[in-house]
C-alpha cells in the first residue's frame, strides 16, 4: 500500500473516490432541500437534526470538509502536473475534435463550483456557526425554513445559483461517469451506469435550481 | 572468373538426424565464460531481435543496433499473412518432411536441403515459444490455435494473428529483448546505423556505427558480429519494403570479404496497389489470399484498354466476352492461384502488350464480382430465399466478401479512393522480398570468420522463390533456435581472448574509411538529390532486372548502373551537416551501396543462363512462355567475392545436392 498516493493512478483514484463521496453528499443534500418545497416542517426537523446531531456535526461534517479539500487540492495538483507534462504547447490544437468540452475543462467548472461553495458556506455554514457558537443563541428547531426562503429573495443570489449549478452539472456530466472508469469499471453495465450518471448530473442541479427559483417566487408573506 | 567450391559444412548422416547430431557435437561455451564474451547484433527484426534475446539469455553480453527509433519498428512488423509450422494440429497429414518438401519445391530447387530441413524441424518450436511469450495467435472457439492455408501447399499449417502476424511475432521478440535489456544483458542502440565491419586478424571483431541523432561515429567491439539486417528490395526504389530498408551492413561485410549469394533472386509479389504517379514513394501489398476469390483480367481489345486509360470507359461497362481472364486462359489447372512468380510475369506480359488499365498502363483488374454473386446466391439459398433478385444477391454477396476481406478492401479504398465492391481492384506486381543475401554455411556464418547472417539477410532457405508465410518462420528459426547454438562452436575458441580493444589499427582504419566516405558525400555539393539517383536506379532495375530479364538488357543495366554510380559520386547533393540528424546523409550512404549492389545483381542475373523461381530469363523459356530451368549447369548457389568493382566480382559455387527429394519441373497448366 505504501507509495500508493505517489502514482498517477492512485491520485486519480483519490480524485474519483472523493468525487463519488461528494456526489453522494449532493444527493443527500438535495433530498433534504427538496422537502423545503414540499413539506417545510420536515425540512425544519431534518435541518435541525443535521445541525445538532453530534455524529453529524463532529464526524460527518469534518469528513465532508476533508472530502471537499482533498478533491479540490488533488484536482489542482493534477492540473499542475498535467500542465507540466507538456511544456511546449501546440501552435494549433483541435481538442474539440476528439474530446467533449466538459471533459477538457474540469478545472474551470470545478473552480466555479468551488467559488460558489465559498458563497454557500458564507450564506449558511458561517451563519450557522455564528448562530450556534459565537452568538450562542438557543436551539430553535423551526427557524430553518424561513431563513432559507429569505436567502432567495434577492435575484442576484438566484442568478448565481443558476449559473453555479449549471456548471456543477457540466462538472458532473464528465466527472461522475469518469470516476467509474477510474475505478476500473468498464464492462457491459457501463452503458447503464453512464446513463444513470448523466441523468443524475442533469436532474440534481436542475432540482437545486428549481428550489432556488421556487423560493424566490414564493416569499413568505408576513 | 570462377574459383573454388564452397564448403557448406553440412553435417554428415541422414537428413532427419543432421541437426540433432550437429547440436550434440558442436562445441559449447560454459555459462561462466559466456559472461566474458560480447556479441554484436545488427538489426532488430524477427531474426535479430530473437537472436539478441536468446544470446543474452544464454549469458553472452549483447549489443543491438537498429536505425529505427525502437527495435519494435523493424519491417518484420509489416508481414500480414502468417507463419508456417509443421504442427499438424489439423490432422491433415502435415509433417516436418512435407514442410521441407514444399519449401524446397517452392524455391524451385535452388535452396540448401539440410538448412530447409532444419527450418522445418524447428518450426514447431517457434509456435510453442511464441505462445509461451504471450503472442495472441488466432484461436478457435474451443480455445485451440487456428490455422489457415497458403499458396503452393496442400495442408493447413499457417498460424496467424489476423492480418498482423508479423507485428505480433516481432512484438514477442521485442518483449523478450526488453526482458534482457532490463536485466542489463542487452544494451540497445537505437537510431544507430552500422557503417562498417571491423576485422582483426581476419575475424569479425566489431563495427563502426553512426549515432543518427548526434552524427557521432562510434566504435563497438565484440567477439562475433551477427547481421540480421533484412533484404535489399529497395534497390528498386519502389517496393513493399519500408523506406529505410537498406543493404549497408551486408554490403559492407561483402566488401570486407563476405560472399554475396544469388543477388538476383528477388520475389515480385503479384498483388500490390499500382503506382499512381511519379510522386510515388512506396507500394502497398494486398494479401495473396485475395486471389482465392478475385479473378484477374484485362480487356481483350486494345481500344478498350486505351479508352479505360483515358477515363472514357469503365471496367464494369466491358462485356464478359470482351474480357481476357489471362491466368485462367493460360493456366487452366491453377487459374488465378498460380504461384507468385508466374502471376507476376503474366501481368507484366499483358501490360507490356498494351492492355494495362490505369493511367500509367501498369495495372490489371482483380475482380470480385463473380465471387460476390456466387456467395450471394449461396447465402440466399441457405437463408431460404427461393427467387432472389440480382440486387439482393449482390447485397448478400458483398456482406460475405466483407467478412472475409473487409480490412483489405478498406485499405484499398483509402489509397486508391475507389470502392472495390463496386468496381474491380487494380493491382500490379511489386518487389517484395529478396531470397538472395550473404552466403552462409550450415552454422549461418558468412565467409568472414565470426560474422554471421540471419533471416532475410542470408540466402539459405528459400532458393529462387519463397512460399508465403515462410519468411517469418525463417527469421525466428534462425534467431531463436539456430544461431544462438551454432555461434557457440565459434565462440568456444574465444573464451580466453578477453575484451576486444577498440583502440587498434584495424578500428582506426575502419573509422577513417567511414569518415572519408561521409566527407566525400557531404563535400560533393552537386546538383541532384539522393532520391533523384535512387529513382533512376530503381527504373533501371525494374525495367531491365525485373520480372523478365535478357542478356542484352542485363548488360545494359550493368553499364548504366556503373555510369549512374559515377555520376552520383560527382554530382550528388547532400544538404545539412554530418554532425547532426541528417536524413539525406543517411539516404545517401544507403543509395551509394545500392548503386554497387545493383550492378552485381545484374551480373548475377546475366550469369545465370536459366529461368528459375523469381529469376526469369527471356532466352530460357518453353515455347509456351514458361520458365526453363537448367539443373545440369545451374543447380548451384552463386556466391560472389568482392574485387573492388562489382563487375569484377569473382564467382564461387556451392553445388546443391538433393538426396532426399526428387528434382522436378514445376508446371501449373
Amino acid at each position, binding site marked *: 500500500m505504501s507509495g500508493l498516493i505517489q502514482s*498517477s*493512478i*492512485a*491520485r*486519480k*483514484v483519490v480524485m474519483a473516490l472523493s468525487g463519488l463521496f461528494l456526489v453522494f453528499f449532493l444527493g443527500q443534500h438535495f433530498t433534504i432541500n427538496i422537502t423545503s418545497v414540499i413539506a417545510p416542517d420536515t425540512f425544519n426537523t431534518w435541518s435541525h437534526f443535521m445541525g445538532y446531531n453530534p455524529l453529524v456535526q463532529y464526524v460527518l461534517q469534518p469528513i465532508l470538509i476533508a472530502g471537499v479539500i482533498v478533491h479540490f487540492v488533488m484536482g489542482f495538483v493534477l492540473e499542475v*502536473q498535467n500542465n507540466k*507534462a507538456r*511544456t511546449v504547447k*501546440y*501552435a*494549433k*490544437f*483541435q481538442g474539440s*475534435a*476528439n474530446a*467533449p468540452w466538459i471533459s477538457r475543462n474540469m478545472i474551470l467548472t470545478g473552480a466555479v463550483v468551488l467559488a460558489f461553495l465559498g458563497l454557500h458556506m458564507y450564506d449558511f455554514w458561517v451563519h450557522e456557526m455564528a448562530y450556534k457558537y459565537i452568538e450562542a443563541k438557543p436551539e430553535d428547531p423551526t427557524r430553518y425554513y424561513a431563513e432559507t426562503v429569505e436567502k432567495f429573495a434577492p435575484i442576484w443570489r438566484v442568478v448565481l445559483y443558476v449559473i453555479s449549478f449549471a456548471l456543477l452539472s457540466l462538472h458532473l456530466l464528465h466527472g461522475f461517469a469518469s470516476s467509474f*472508469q*477510474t*475505478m*476500473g*469499471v*468498464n464492462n457491459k453495465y457501463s452503458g447503464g451506469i453512464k446513463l444513470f450518471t448523466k441523468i443524475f448530473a442533469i436532474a440534481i442541479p436542475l432540482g437545486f435550481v428549481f428550489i432556488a427559483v421556487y423560493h424566490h417566487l414564493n416569499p413568505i408573506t408576513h | 572468373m570462377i574459383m573454388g567450391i564452397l564448403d557448406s559444412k553440412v553435417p554428415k548422416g541422414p537428413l532427419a538426424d543432421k541437426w540433432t547430431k550437429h547440436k550434440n557435437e558442436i562445441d559449447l561455451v560454459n555459462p561462466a565464460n559466456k559472461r566474458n564474451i560480447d556479441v554484436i547484433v545488427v538489426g532488430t527484426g524477427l531474426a535479430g531481435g*530473437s537472436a539478441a534475446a536468446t544470446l543474452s*539469455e*544464454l549469458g553472452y553480453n549483447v549489443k543491438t543496433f537498429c536505425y529505427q*527509433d*525502437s*527495435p519494435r*519498428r523493424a519491417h518484420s*512488423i*509489416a508481414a500480414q499473412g502468417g507463419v508456417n509450422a509443421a504442427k499438424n494440429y489439423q490432422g491433415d497429414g502435415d509433417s516436418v518432411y512435407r514442410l521441407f518438401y514444399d519449401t524446397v519445391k517452392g524455391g524451385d530447387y535452388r535452396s540448401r536441403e539440410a538448412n530447409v530441413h532444419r527450418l522445418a524441424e524447428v518450426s514447431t518450436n517457434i509456435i*510453442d515459444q511464441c*505462445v509461451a511469450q*504471450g503472442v*495472441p*495467435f488466432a*484461436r*478457435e472457439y474451443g*480455445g485451440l490455435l487456428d490455422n489457415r492455408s497458403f499458396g503452393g501447399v496442400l495442408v493447413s499449417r499457417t498460424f496467424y*494473428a489476423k492480418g*498482423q502476424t508479423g*507485428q*505480433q511475432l516481432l512484438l514477442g521478440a521485442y*518483449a*523478450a529483448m*526488453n526482458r534482457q*535489456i532490463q536485466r542489463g544483458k542487452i544494451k540497445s542502440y*537505437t537510431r544507430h546505423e552500422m557503417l562498417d565491419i571491423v576485422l582483426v586478424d581476419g575475424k569479425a571483431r566489431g563495427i563502426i556505427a553512426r549515432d543518427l541523432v548526434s552524427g557521432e561515429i562510434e566504435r563497438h567491439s565484440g567477439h562475433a558480429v551477427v547481421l540480421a539486417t533484412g533484404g535489399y528490395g529497395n534497390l528498386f526504389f519502389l517496393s513493399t519494403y519500408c523506406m529505410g530498408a537498406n543493404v549497408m551492413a551486408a554490403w559492407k561485410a561483402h566488401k570486407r570479404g563476405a560472399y554475396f549469394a544469388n543477388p538476383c533472386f528477388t520475389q515480385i509479389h503479384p498483388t500490390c496497389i499500382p503506382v499512381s*504517379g511519379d*510522386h510515388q*514513394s512506396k507500394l502497398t501489398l494486398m494479401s495473396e489470399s485475395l486471389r482465392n476469390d478475385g479473378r484477374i483480367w484485362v480487356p481483350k481489345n486494345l481500344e478498350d484498354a486505351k479508352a479505360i486509360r483515358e477515363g472514357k470507359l469503365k471496367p464494369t461497362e466491358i462485356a464478359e466476352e470482351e474480357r481476357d481472364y489471362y491466368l485462367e486462359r493460360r493456366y487452366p489447372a491453377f487459374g488465378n492461384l498460380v504461384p507468385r512468380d508466374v502471376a507476376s510475369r503474366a501481368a507484366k506480359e499483358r501490360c507490356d502488350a498494351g492492355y494495362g488499365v490505369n493511367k500509367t498502363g501498369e495495372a490489371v483488374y482483380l475482380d470480385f464480382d463473380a465471387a460476390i454473386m456466387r456467395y450471394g446466391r449461396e447465402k440466399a439459398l441457405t437463408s431460404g430465399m427461393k427467387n432472389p433478385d440480382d440486387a439482393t444477391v449482390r447485397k448478400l454477396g458483398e456482406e460475405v466478401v466483407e467478412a472475409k476481406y473487409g480490412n483489405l478492401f478498406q485499405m484499398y479504398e*483509402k489509397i486508391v*479512393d475507389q470502392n472495390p465492391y463496386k468496381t474491380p481492384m487494380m493491382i500490379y506486381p511489386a518487389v517484395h522480398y529478396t531470397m538472395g543475401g550473404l552466403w552462409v554455411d550450415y552454422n549461418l556464418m558468412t565467409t568472414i570468420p565470426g560474422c554471421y547472417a540471419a533471416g532475410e539477410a542470408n540466402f539459405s532457405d528459400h532458393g529462387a522463390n519463397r512460399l508465403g508465410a515462410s519468411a517469418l518462420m525463417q527469421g525466428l528459426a534462425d534467431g531463436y533456435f539456430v544461431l544462438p547454438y551454432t555461434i557457440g562452436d565459434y565462440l568456444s575458441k574465444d573464451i580466453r581472448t578477453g575484451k576486444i580493444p577498440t583502440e587498434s589499427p584495424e578500428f582506426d582504419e575502419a573509422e577513417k574509411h567511414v569518415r572519408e566516405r561521409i566527407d566525400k558525400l557531404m563535400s560533393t555539393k552537386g546538383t541532384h*538529390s539522393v532520391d533523384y539517383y535512387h529513382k533512376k536506379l530503381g527504373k533501371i532495375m525494374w525495367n531491365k532486372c525485373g520480372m523478365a530479364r535478357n542478356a542484352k538488357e542485363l548488360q545494359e543495366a550493368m553499364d548504366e548502373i556503373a555510369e549512374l554510380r559515377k555520376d552520383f559520386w560527382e554530382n550528388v547533393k547532400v*544538404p*545539412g551537416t554530418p554532425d*547532426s*540528424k541528417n536524413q*539525406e546523409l543517411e539516404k545517401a550512404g544507403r543509395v551509394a551501396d545500392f548503386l554497387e549492389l545493383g550492378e552485381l545483381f545484374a551480373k548475377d542475373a546475366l550469369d545465370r543462363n536459366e529461368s528459375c523461381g523469381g529469376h526469369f530469363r527471356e532466352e530460357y523459356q518453353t515455347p509456351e512462355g514458361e520458365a526453363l530451368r537448367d539443373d545440369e549447369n545451374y543447380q548451384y548457389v552463386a556466391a560472389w567475392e568482392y574485387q573492388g568493382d562489382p563487375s569484377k566480382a569473382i564467382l564461387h559455387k556451392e553445388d546443391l545436392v538433393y538426396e532426399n527429394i526428387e528434382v522436378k519441373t514445376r508446371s501449373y497448366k
Partner: protein
Amino acid sequence: MKIYLKIWRQKNPSTKGAMVAYTLDGIEADMSFLEMLDVLNEELISKNEEPVEFDHDCREGICGTCSLMINGRPHGPDTMITACQLHMRSFNDGDTIAIEPWRAKAFPVIKDLIVDRSSFDRIQQAGGYISVNTSGRPVDANAIPIEKEAADASFNAATCIGCGACVAACKNASAMLFTSAKVSQFALLPQGRVEATERVMNMVRQMDLEGFGNCTNTGACEVECPKGISLENIARMNREYLSASVKG
C-alpha cells in the same frame, strides 16, 4: 492543387523552434501526405535549404514511426489511420496545413518534426513481457486452451503500434492508453497472469517517472488511436493496479 504549409522547424533539442511557412504547388490528390512532404523536401534541397526532417518508415500504417500533428490532430483529420496513410484528397486547394511534432515532456523534440519516444521503450522494459526463456523448451502451444474471447481481446490490445498519438492527443500528455494496452495484452492471457501484479506496478511506476501527465478520461486518445485501442484497457489497468496495490 496549391497548399500552404506551416511547419515546425527546430535545429536540435537545445535550440528554440518556430513555425515556418511554405507554399507548394502542383500537389496531386492521389499523393500521400508524406509524399507531399517528399515533394517539399526535394524543392528545399534544390533551393539549397535544409529539408524538413520527419520520422517515417513502413508507410503502410503498421510500424508506428510517423508522428505528425496535422492541423491540431495526431495523424491528421481522418480517423483510424496513421499520417502515412493519409492522402492529399482529404485536403482542398488553397488549404493551410499546420504540421507539428508530438508535444510532450516525455517526447522531447530531436529535430524538426522528429521526437524521442524512447520513454515508451522504457515503459515496456519495466515489465512488458512474460518471463519465459526463449532458449527453453516451453510446453506445447495447445497445452493451455485460451478462450477465444480473451485471445481476441488480448490481440486487440496488442495491435498498438506505439506511435504515441494517444499522448499527442491527450490534453494532459498522458500515456495511459499505451501502457494499458501493453498491460492488458498480457493480463488477458493465462501465461501473462503469473506476473500480472508485478508487471502493472512496474510499468505504471516507469510511466510516471517518464513525466507523462495523468489520465482525466477525456477519451481523446481512443478517438485518435490509429488502431482503435479501447478505453476499456485503461479501466482494466486501473483495476489491475488497484488489486495489485492492495495485494502488494
